[in-house]
């Protein structure tokens, strides 16, 4: 039976247009990143990547990301468990509130943290008196990174856990499983792939966050400069090849994220086909 848009000529035209536009607007920029990064050869790329300040920026970015992931993992699992396994007043509101970071411009997100914890903020005065510096130091970068990435794990888990329902878990409780055993043996196997994808998304955003981090970081080379901020600094210094060398590292993480997503989707589709 013929369906809409099945005529061979129309089909070819639409596929051709989609592929051409995607190549121009998505693939070309991706290729350009690596072309620029390697434009002066592999040796220059290596010199740029192993530069002291670049290494420091990579270190800081990995450090902040390594702290962000477990924090948001625990919060995401707890929140998803709470809103999908219990009913209580305010459940809807809570689900809406976790979307706040998606609605807020990154610069505004950085600003609200700066206002609260910065020298003029109402908590900042107290922190200052106790000699604790959060803003323009790594704790500030960590705080805003946790803020902008906190919806990802919860957002991946909530629809899945809602669809799965709680029958298996209730059965486990009836059979006498403790809370921890229940989670490890029943819940975790059911949600592990969504959990993994949530972590991958958190990782990608944590590594790449720019707007919010640039407000609270101060971008001191070797100290509070994350990799995306380092890209900006080099680019403003007219060191284009150096900027793109660091950008290529970030693009590699993005490519890994895309591959992981495609892999997980392929796995889910295959399981559905087998079931």
């Amino acid at each position, binding site marked *: *039976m013929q369906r809409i848009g099945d005529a061979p000529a129309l089909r070819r035209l*639409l596929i051709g247009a989609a*592929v051409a536009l995607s190549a121009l607007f998505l693939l070309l920029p991706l290729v350009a990143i690596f072309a*620029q990064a390697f434009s002066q050869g592999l040796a220059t790329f290596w010199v740029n990547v192993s530069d002291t300040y670049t290494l420091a920026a990579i270190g800081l970015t990995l450090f902040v990301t390594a702290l962000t992931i477990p924090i948001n993992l625990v919060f995401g699992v707890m929140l998803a468990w709470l809103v999908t396994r219990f009913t209580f007043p305010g459940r809807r509101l809570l689900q809406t509130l976790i979307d706040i970071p998606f609605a807020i*411009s990154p610069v505004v997100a950085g600003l609200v943290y700066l206002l609260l914890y910065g020298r003029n903020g109402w908590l900042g005065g107290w922190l200052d008196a106790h000699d604790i510096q959060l803003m323009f130091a790594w704790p500030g970068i960590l705080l805003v990174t946790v803020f902008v990435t*906190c919806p990802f794990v919860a957002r991946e888990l909530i629809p899945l856990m809602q669809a799965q329902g709680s029958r298996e878990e209730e059965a486990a409780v009836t059979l006498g499983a403790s809370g921890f055993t229940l989670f490890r043996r029943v819940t975790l196997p059911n949600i592990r792939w969504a959990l993994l994808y949530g972590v991958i998304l958190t990782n990608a955003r944590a590594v790449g966050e720019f707007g919010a981090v640039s407000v609270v970081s101060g971008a001191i080379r070797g100290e509070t400069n994350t990799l995306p901020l380092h*890209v900006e600094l080099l680019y403003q210094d007219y060191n284009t090849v150096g900027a*793109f060398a660091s950008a290529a590292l970030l693009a590699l993480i993005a490519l890994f994220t895309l591959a992981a997503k495609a892999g997980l989707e392929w796995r889910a589709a295959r399981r559905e086909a087998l079931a």
Partner: protein
Amino acid sequence: MSQRAAGSRLALPFPGRTQRVLPGFGLSLGISLTFVSLVLLLPLTGLVGQLAGLSLGEYWAIISEARVVASYAITLGAAAVAALVNAAFGLLLAWVLVRYDFPGKRALDALMDLPFALPTAVAGITLATLYSSNGWMGQALAPLGLEVAYTWVGIALAMAFTSIPFVVRTVQPILEDLPHEIDEAAMTLGARDGVAFRRVILPHLWPALVTGTGLAFVRSLGEFGAVIFIAGNMPYETEITSLMIFVKLQEYDYVGASAIASAVLATSLALLLAINLWQGRFIRRLHGGN
């Protein structure tokens, strides 16, 4: 729908009392509420605190300053163009990815998520380099008299790039779930492709298309990293509102930054609320007014 999933309460024989079967209510409630209060809500009080000292007149003076108003016009205009371009591009890509099979389809599908995965600063310097006068695209467009970098067009381009996934990913699942019979019936009755698409398919996609376009618009309004490199940042001409907040901060004008930020925040929250309400109304209408 969610009642079944969330209904793990067991009624006890005593009227008015229920007990939760699954463990961890107290723990998950405690952690979630603490996190939401400290990470999401507490920082917003800082904004309120800064603005509390302002009179309405002073507040209005800041947010209606000529340079700031120019930035609203640029941001809103470029975001609208970016969202509309994405509506067309997203609809085309969703259609091609759902309806046709061709070599490289999986790679094309994966490529759609690139703008979300790629750090915005990386997207920003890449687009600025590509479209500058000696970049690949800049050189190709120069003979046509088209200047993209450091103009308004560049801002719209960067916004469009970062918000590509919204329309594709909201329309795609709806198109996948459309039953075959719908367009077979239209074709049997002899409708031409264009007419059949407009009359039969489009009405089903409309809510997803509007939602995706709306989300792309909201995202574009707040975009910063991808835009500032290609924008040129000339006052009154290519300055976006996020940059105005950033500039005020660098001048240590926290009050000015807060005032503009509150206007941006109110606009995006109002838009998101409108999208949600509209979506809810449309879904109710589809399901017969419940």
